[in-house]
């Protein structure tokens, strides 16, 4: 993880980037664009969850709270205070980060994985119920709609860019920019000394502490950052789909599918969450033809992937082309 990029990996990254940039030129089928936008939203979410769980070793099951807070926060700010979604996007992230610090504090003391999982899950349930119950503000389960879209603008060469449900391509590029930005933050962090200290904390808190790693600061930092990123993803989702219901953005279902993505893709790797988000989102769409067998097949595939590729899909390459031990 801390070695310089090899030529091969540079080429892979460049290739993937070019492909992502060029995709709308190949096909601008709105359905494909829509699925890809979802892939990228979930990719951001999954990467941020992987940051706390895979890299920092804090096994939380409650990150959907931050997604929901980001989404509702941004939506309500832009609706009620008439602030541009371009700004509330970041405010949504900040709200989520605040909540991240808040719930990060009690879990500082907890070392058992299951406890962290349950405490965060409980917190997310509290958030969901509160959003559902304060229906005078959030309209509760009836769903918040009428969320403003991003304002359009004019790009020097490309002409006017607009954001409406039919403009999938502009959403595609916007989400791609966000994804790259967030991913850049995560990669830079993890390849830095802070990242190293974080991995050390994951593998042994006592030893890390004895080597000068401030666990409290580290945990709060990573929790806040990850919540911020998830909050941004949530805020983008709100302005993209323009309907929010507590069950769909703070529901356990959402968290479960994110967890599945990361585990299937490969926990504790950079590409794993992205691969997982891509594969599972596309898979669940591709299996629409299986009709009532769809979810059955989906679950079965998760089990099989986990059993035969226990470190996730990202290890597939090494499976196929094993590299000699150095």
């Amino acid at each position, binding site marked *: 993880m801390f070695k310089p990029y090899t030529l091969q990996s540079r080429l892979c990254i460049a290739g993937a980037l070019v492909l992502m940039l060029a995709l709308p030129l190949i096909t601008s*089928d*709105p*359905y494909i664009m*829509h*699925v890809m936008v*979802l892939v990228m939203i979930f990719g951001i979410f999954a990467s941020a969850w992987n940051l706390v769980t895979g890299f920092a070793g804090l096994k939380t099951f409650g990150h959907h709270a931050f997604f929901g807070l980001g989404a509702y926060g941004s939506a309500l700010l832009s609706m009620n205070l008439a602030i541009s979604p371009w700004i509330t996007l970041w405010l949504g992230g900040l709200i989520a980060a605040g909540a991240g610090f808040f719930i990060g504090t009690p879990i500082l003391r907890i070392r058992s994985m299951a406890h962290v999982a349950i405490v965060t899950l409980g917190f997310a349930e509290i958030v969901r119920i509160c959003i*559902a*119950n304060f*229906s005078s503000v959030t*309209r*509760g*389960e*009836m*769903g918040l*709609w*009428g969320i403003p879209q991003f304002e359009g603008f004019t790009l020097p060469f490309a002409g006017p860019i607009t954001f*409406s*449900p*039919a403009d999938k391509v502009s959403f595609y590029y916007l989400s791609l920019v966000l994804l790259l930005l967030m991913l850049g933050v995560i990669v830079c962090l993890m390849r830095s000394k802070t990242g190293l200290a974080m991995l050390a904390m994951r593998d042994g808190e006592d030893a890390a502490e004895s080597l000068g790693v401030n666990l409290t600061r580290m945990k709060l930092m990573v929790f806040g950052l990850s919540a911020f990123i998830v909050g941004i993803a949530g805020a983008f*989702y709100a302005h993209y*789909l*323009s*309907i929010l*219901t507590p*069950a*769909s953005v703070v*529901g356990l*279902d959402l968290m479960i599918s994110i967890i599945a993505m990361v585990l299937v893709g490969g926990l504790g790797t950079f590409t794993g969450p992205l691969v997982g988000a891509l594969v599972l989102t596309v898979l669940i*769409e591709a299996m*629409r033809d299986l*009709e*009532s067998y*769809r*979810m059955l097949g989906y679950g079965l595939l998760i089990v099989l992937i986990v059993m035969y590729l226990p470190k996730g899909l990202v290890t597939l390459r090494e499976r196929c082309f094993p590299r000699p031990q150095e």
Partner: protein
Amino acid sequence: AEVKIGVVGPLTGPAATSGIAMRDAYQFVADEVNAAGGIDLNGEKTTLKLIFEDSASRPEIGVSAAQKLLTRDNVDLLVGDTFASSVTIALMDVAASYGKFVMSGQPVSSEIARKVESDPKRFANFWKASWNSDAYAKAVFEAVEGLTAAGKFSPEGKKIAFVFEDTDYGKSNTEFAVPLFKEAGWSEVGHEAVPLGHSDFYPQLSKLRGAKPDVLVSIFTSVNSGVALTRQIKETGLDSLHVAIYYPLRPEFHQGVGADSEKMLWTPMLYDPVNNEKHKALFDLMESKGVAATGDHAQGYCQFAMLVDNLKRAGTYEPAKLSEAFAQTDFDCYTGRFVYDTANHTPKIGPEFLPVAVAQV
């Protein structure tokens, strides 16, 4: 020729019961129509092709489904969601931006109607096939008033309590009912929202026994909750008048509670094949093709038949023309007569339209 109709509804997840029933009912109608050679559209005999997609009751999955139907399958019109209001609200926008005609199925949320009213131009080609959430509230209120007037029921303290499912459905019903009763001098002594599928009501019932309401209104989509509440009311000996919304129309309810449902009121009496001859006719019709029809089937059947009828009258699936036909709908079906309120694209309710009937067991 063939007209492609995309249908989005919950085929998995906790609402799958209804979603699957809706799917079967729609297909039933389509098969009937196709067996008769189809309908005349744009001057051609046209058969109906239904393409179903799952929404799992989740907006983003529903939007994906709609997106796929509209672009991949290139459907000519869309029905969605067949059951969940939140999905309908989400895909209204998507569909509007493609300029296709959209009808929703069972969703009742008044938010949908409100959204139509908020931007009539944008949603000119969206029509709702079920009434608004306030319908039940009115029905309950009128039923209680009616019983009192007839001297069959005497509310001493005029106290009312609600136990409802913590969903859009449960909450909005309660929200509409409370002011009606309050205006008539009632006071609300219980307001208990429980999670979907909840089944242990002892704490709520203990609390209510202390509050002694005259009327207890319960609102669930999950039959499980309905059965449990009804039974536990009996067990704990709470003697309020129990008015149940929606869930008793599911056959499992009667299986589950047996005699414990005595004396309770329920609405909507959408479907009662035992006592209602029209419903019986529909039941027999579907039974002959091997479908054991439930209330969901009945609604699905009539909603879709109404859509087909409108297609026939419009002679095209072109959105503007079809919407014109919808505005003039007057379609009599087994469950009632569809006539639209053109202000909010919602079918009218009432004895002469779609009856939101109240019945006593």
